[in-house]
């Protein structure tokens, strides 16, 4: 028997005046999935994740998370999810420990538990060696790690991450990845957007691709690969001859994209 999806969207649409940023997106993310949400710049990824986390109201459509309608039960949903939004949502004039303790209490943990988890998370993220440092003085990578720590301090069932690996060095990325994989192993669901296709390919079991506000592909990596290979004419050089397509090839094949000629911008360098 298949369990109910953790995230369902139906006809999710968002307009900004004349511009339709997201149009009729129907998503289904099953429990325990590591779900990658891809798309070119301006495709509507961040708009979608903002709507899924209650940071932006949809113009139309429905969002259901963990069986609850987000618009009807926002607080109940928020209690069970964790978010690292685009701007990381940090409070710069607190120390890391103060911020995590604050985040824990805002998510309903008691003072002692919040403090204990904050210390554990800081230690795990290797942020504990400068306890007096303010968040505003953290490096970008440190801020990313702290934002992730704040998003998981209450043990969420679903985690939404908007570009978690952007500007993060290899060591920090390794820490983040091991934490996320640990969460998946314990049954959490992760919904992530990223431009780094190699990371998505390595981490995610399922992927959806959005392009110009519309969902153009959704499924497991194997399903997407099979779909692209079926459409690719033999001898095109896109891995058609039994060669395994990379996610980048799948992505470019679905979204399209043109290479500009070297003659353009000839004044550069």
């Amino acid at each position, binding site marked *: 028997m298949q369990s109910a999806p953790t995230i369902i969207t139906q006809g999710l649409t968002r307009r900004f005046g004349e511009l339709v940023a997201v149009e009729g997106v129907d998503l289904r993310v099953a429990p325990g999935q590591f779900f990658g949400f891809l798309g070119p710049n301006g495709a509507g990824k961040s708009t979608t994740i903002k709507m899924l986390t209650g940071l*932006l109201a949809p113009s139309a459509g429905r969002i259901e998370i963990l069986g609850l309608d987000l618009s009807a039960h926002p607080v109940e949903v*928020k*209690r069970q999810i964790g978010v690292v*939004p685009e701007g990381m949502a940090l409070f710069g004039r*607190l120390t890391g420990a103060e911020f995590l303790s604050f985040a824990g209490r*805002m998510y309903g943990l008691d*003072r002692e538990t919040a*403090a204990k988890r904050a210390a554990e998370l800081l230690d795990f993220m290797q942020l504990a060696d400068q306890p007096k440092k303010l968040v505003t003085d953290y490096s970008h990578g440190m801020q990313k790690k702290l934002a992730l720590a704040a998003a998981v301090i209450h043990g969420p069932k679903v985690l939404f991450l908007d570009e978690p690996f952007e500007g993060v060095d290899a060591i920090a990325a390794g820490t983040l990845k091991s934490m996320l994989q640990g969460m998946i192993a314990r049954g959490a669901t992760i919904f992530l957007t990223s431009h780094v296709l190699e990371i998505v390919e390595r981490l995610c079991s399922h992927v959806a691709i959005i392009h110009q506000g519309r969902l153009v592909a959704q499924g497991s990596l194997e399903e997407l690969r099979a779909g692209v290979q079926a459409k690719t004419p033999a001898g095109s050089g896109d891995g058609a001859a039994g060669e395994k397509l990379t996610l980048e090839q799948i992505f470019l094949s679905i979204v399209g994209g043109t290479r500009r000629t070297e003659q353009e911008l000839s004044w550069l360098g």
Partner: protein
Amino acid sequence: MTSTVHRRGQLSAIAYLRWRMFVNGLRTRRGKMELVSRIIVTAAFAFGGLGGFAAALGTSWYFVEHDKAEFLAAVLWPVFFFWQVFPVMATAFTNNPDSSDLLRFPLSYRSFFVVRLAYGFFDPASTLGTLALIGILIGITVARPLLFPVALVVLLMFALFNLVLMQTVFSWVERWLAQRRTREIFGVLFILFMLSFQLIGPTMERLQKKPRPELQKAVEITTRVQAVLPPGLAADAIAQSTHAEYMVGFTSLLFLGTLTLAMGYLLHLRLRAQFRGENLSEVEARPTVVQAQGLQVGWELPGFSQSVAAVFEKEIRYVARSGPMLLTLIMPIFMLLVFRLGPMSPMRHSGLLNRAPDMALPGAAAYALLVLTNLVYNSFGGDAGGIQFFYAAPVGFRQIVLGKNLLHGAILVANTLLAWLAVTLFYGAPTPAVSIATLAGLLFAAPLNFTAGNLLSIYAPKKRDFATFGRQNVSQTTVLASLGVQIVIVGVGVAAFAIARFYKNLWIAVLVFLALALITFPLYVMVLRRMDDIAIERREPLIAELCRA
């Protein structure tokens, strides 16, 4: 030559940038509202400025016409004080954007310096100060047309001095308040400064008991000292010209110019550091040994939920780490000192507080409410990107706002208590009737102020950096609305106290305030209850404004 053209291009690009930001800001309804508010606020300032202009014009005309040009210092000193003190007293009403954002561009240091001064020139204090100086110039010219060129040069130099000094003071205070250690030294110095004022009363009494010549001598020394300070120098430069002592006048002007250059050098030291990418963080040197850190358990606030207590704790930490904010919050005590020593001191024979010393506590309490404007009317400004956290967290905005208001209330109570102590020291202990009337006044005023502030914080937010002194963008809508509310509060307060004093019974004021509190407190509760809905309704513009880079 090329660099000059390049620099000119950059400066015009910056001017164009500011213009486009202004024009593009009008695309939204809020932007249009900002423009309307700006026009009204500017008109209000202009009204006040015209008063200063007329007073400066008339007084300077009188002095020059009656061959008392030396007394021009009496006009220039108030202009000087206003120019330097107003921006600190009224940070909520001044709009002085941060120029350091421009450093990503290949901007020369000279251009950066000029831009910083230009931004400072558009501060209301500078504009109003300049208006007063124009008044003085016209007054002098009408009295003696031939003095125009001299007066123009001297007053231009005086204006430049004020402009440079204002920027210098701001940048150095910001530097000193950025580090915990210097902040503590600053705090100790301030306390010593306050305590030293206690010695002035007995000293003055002793002086008054002794024969007059000594007092006369003290006045003479003060006059001589002021003569070598900028307002005195400017007055002297003009006065000497009226006596055809051009060389002496030129020397005073030269001295004023030297002081301007000296101030400019101090400003240069700060701006140069900023230009080189100075970071005023509180980071300590990286420890070689990892420090063991005990569990930091959050605060508990009896009677309030976890989330309210957490917000309250977070707000306290923000304010405690903001030197500029702390400085603003101790201003009521500073103002009591100014009143104690200034022309309204009870040590003198005339003055408001001499006639009504019982009004010192209500006045200080009203000012304590006024200095909260920055915090109360833009309570999410300091959170910046953190606003997304509030929206993502499973907590209603009424709890978040309540946590913030608890901090505002705590500061107000603390400031009023300090003011009570200061009034007791300076003027004698306030009577129970005055103390209770002041308390009742706050019970009426604080909920009204918090209600308006909570609404404005959501409807007209502006990102605010708690670490910088001045150099902030303020919402003109907030300026206008907060000004309106403060006028209502002060107006009602003055009226209530006036009626009570007329009937020689301050308990009347207590009754009036308590009756008004019965209206404002339920209003506060009603708006607080609506906060969740209002915050959801304003979610997008609030996040967009505060998360802006």
